[in-house]
C-alpha cells in the first residue's frame, strides 16, 4: 500500500495493539457479498504468496544437487562446465554482466524517466501532456525482440562512435576502456542502453502518477514562499514523489535484471578462455541470456540444475534489491504524511 506514495489512509488509523488491519477491521458483515468478495480477495492473495514460495522452493530443490556436485566455487569461479564427470561452474562473469548492464540501464533510465514525468506533469501544456504520456506508455507495449532487432540493425551502428568518444575521454579508467572487440553494438554498454529504453516507460509511468498526485496545497505553499518553478519542484514535488520514484526504479530494475531476448540478441558471448575484463565495452552474458543461449542443451539433471542455480541467484538478487528499496521507503515513512 505504501509502495507508490508511501502513504495510505490505514497508516493513520490508531493501530490499537498493533494487529494487522484485517483483524482490527469489523466492517465485514458476514453477508453473502462480503463473504464472496472477501474470500476471492484473500484467496488471490494467498495464491500469489504460495506461487512465489513454490517458485523459490522449486529453484532450490533443482539447484542443490548440482551445487553439491560442483567442483568449483559457485560464487567465485569463472568456469562454466556444468556437466560431465567433473562439473565446474561459477557465476562471477554472469553476475558482473547482469549487474553492470542493469546499473547502466538504471543510470540512464531513472533520471531520464523522472525528467520526462516532470515534463508531462509540471511543464507540458494540457493539450500535450496526455498524448505525450500515451506515447511513452506505448514504449512499454513494444515486444522486446523489436528492441533487440532495432538495436542490432539500426541504433547499434551509431554506438561505435559513442564508444570511441567515451574511450577517448575516460578510457584510462578500466571500466570505460574500448578496444573495438567486440564491436560496439555487442557490448554490455550497448545492452545497457537498450535496456534503459525498455525500462523507461515503467519508470516514467509510475513517476508520472506520483508527481500528478502532489497536492496543489504543497505546490502553492512553495510558490507562496517565493519559489521558482524548479525550486517548487525541488521543495514540494520531488520529496513527495520520492517513494514512488524508488518503487518505479525497482520495478524497472526487476525488468532489466531479468530481460532476456533483447540482451541475448545483442551481447556477444565471451570465449571461455577470455580474460576477465571490467570494461563495459566488453562482451559477456547475463544470467538470463546464458540460460536462453543454452536452453536447448538441458539434457541432464546435473546440467539443468546448474542453470537453475544461476536463475536462483537472479531471484535472490532481485529480492535483495526490492527489500533494500522497501527499507529506504519505510525509514522515511513518518515524513511522507
Amino acid at each position, binding site marked *: 500500500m505504501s509502495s507508490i506514495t508511501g502513504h495510505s489512509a490505514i497508516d493513520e488509523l490508531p493501530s490499537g495493539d498493533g494487529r494487522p488491519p484485517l483483524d482490527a477491521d469489523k466492517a465485514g458483515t458476514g453477508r453473502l457479498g462480503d463473504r464472496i468478495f472477501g474470500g476471492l480477495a484473500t484467496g488471490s492473495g494467498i495464491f500469489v504468496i504460495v506461487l512465489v514460495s513454490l517458485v523459490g522452493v522449486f529453484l532450490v530443490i533443482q539447484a542443490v544437487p548440482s551445487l553439491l556436485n560442483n567442483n568449483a566455487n559457485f560464487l567465485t569461479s569463472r568456469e562454466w562446465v556444468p556437466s560431465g564427470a567433473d562439473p565446474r561452474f561459477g557465476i562471477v562473469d554472469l553476475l558482473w554482466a547482469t549487474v553492470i548492464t542493469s546499473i547502466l540501464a538504471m543510470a540512464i533510465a531513472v533520471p531520464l524517466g523522472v525528467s520526462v514525468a516532470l515534463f508531462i506533469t509540471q511543464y507540458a501544456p494540457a493539450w500535450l501532456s496526455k498524448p505525450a504520456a500515451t506515447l511513452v506508455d506505448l514504449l512499454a507495449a513494444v515486444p522486446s525482440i523489436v528492441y533487440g532487432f532495432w538495436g542490432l540493425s539500426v541504433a547499434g551502428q551509431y554506438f561505435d562512435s559513442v564508444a570511441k568518444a567515451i574511450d577517448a575521454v575516460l578510457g584510462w579508467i578500466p571500466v570505460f576502456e574500448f578496444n573495438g572487440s567486440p564491436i560496439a553494438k555487442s557490448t554490455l554498454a550497448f545492452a545497457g542502453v537498450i535496456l534503459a529504453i525498455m525500462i523507461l516507460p515503467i519508470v516514467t509511468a509510475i513517476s508520472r502518477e506520483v508527481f500528478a498526485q502532489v497536492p496543489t496545497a504543497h505546490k502553492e505553499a512553495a510558490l507562496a514562499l*517565493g519559489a521558482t518553478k524548479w525550486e517548487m519542484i525541488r521543495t514540494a514535488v520531488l520529496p513527495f514523489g520520492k517513494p514512488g520514484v524508488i518503487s518505479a526504479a525497482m520495478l524497472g530494475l526487476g525488468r532489466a535484471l531479468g530481460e532476456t531476448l533483447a540482451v541475448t540478441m545483442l551481447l556477444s558471448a565471451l570465449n571461455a578462455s577470455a580474460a576477465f575484463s571490467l570494461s563495459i565495452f566488453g562482451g559477456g552474458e547475463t544470467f538470463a541470456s546464458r540460460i536462453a543461449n543454452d536452453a536447448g542443451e538441458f539434457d541432464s539433471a546435473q546440467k539443468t540444475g546448474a542453470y537453475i542455480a544461476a536463475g536462483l541467484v537472479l531471484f535472490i538478487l532481485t529480492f535483495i534489491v526490492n527489500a533494500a528499496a522497501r527499507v529506504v521507503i519505510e525509514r522515511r515513512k513518518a515524513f511522507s504524511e
Partner: protein
Amino acid sequence: MAKRIDVKDLNIFYGDFKAVEGVSLTVEPRSVTAFIGPSGCGKSTVLRTLNRMHEVIPGGRVEGKVALDDQDLYAPSMDPVAVRRTVGMVFQRPNPFPTMSIRDNVAAGLKLNGLKNKKQLDEVVEKSLKGANLWNEVKDRLDKPGAGLSGGQQQRLCIARAIAVDPQVLLMDEPCSALDPISTLAIEDLINELKSQFTVVIVTHNMQQAARVSDQTAFFNLKATGQPGRLVEVDDTQKIFSNPTEKATEDYISGRFG
C-alpha cells in the same frame, strides 16, 4: 517593516471569465483588513492577486493596478517570485511540507533565499516559531515531521514559515476554517500580535472573527448569479458592523442575506 497596499480598478479573470470586477481599496501598514462575503464572491481571488498567486492557476490574469507602497506589483519588470517573497501567504488548510521536519518547514523559505549558515537558520527558526506562538510546544521536537502536529499547530507552523522570510505583508486565506475553536482563538491572538510588524489581510467566513481581529473590513458580493464579484463596501470594522452604508452589507452581517 510593513507596507501599504493600494488596489485600483482591479478586474480579475479566469481565462475569458471575469471573476471579479472593479475593486479599489487601500490597506494601511500595520493594520488588519478582513475580507468577508458569501462563498464564490471572489474574496480569495482578490487576496491571491495581492501576491500574484492568482496567475499560478492556468488562465489566471488581471487588469488594473496593485501597488505595494509605490511599487506596481504587475509592472512588466516585476518578477512574481520577488513579489511572493515580499508578500507571504497562509492557506485555508494547513499545508506544511510533509517530507520535512518542523525545523526544515520553517527554514524552507530562507533556504530558497540562499541562507545556508546553520546558526543563522536556527536563530530565525526560533524567532519565527516564537512569533507564531509555537516555540514552547515544539522546541523539543524540531526534527520531527511537521505533519505530525495537530491542525492548529500545523497552521501556526505555516504562519511561522511565512513570517520567517520577513515579508512586508501577510495574506491569510480563511486560516481558521479547518480548525477547532481553541486553535482558532490561538490564531486570532497571533494575528493581533502580528499586526505590530506586518500588514495583514485575512479572508474569513466568520463574521465574529472579522469583528474581533480586523481594523478594516471589506464586504464582497456577487452582482447577481453568474456575474462577476465586486467590492460592495470597505470601511472601519466598527462602522461596517454597526452602521454600514450599503443595505446589502447590513443584510449580510445581520444574517438577512438575499
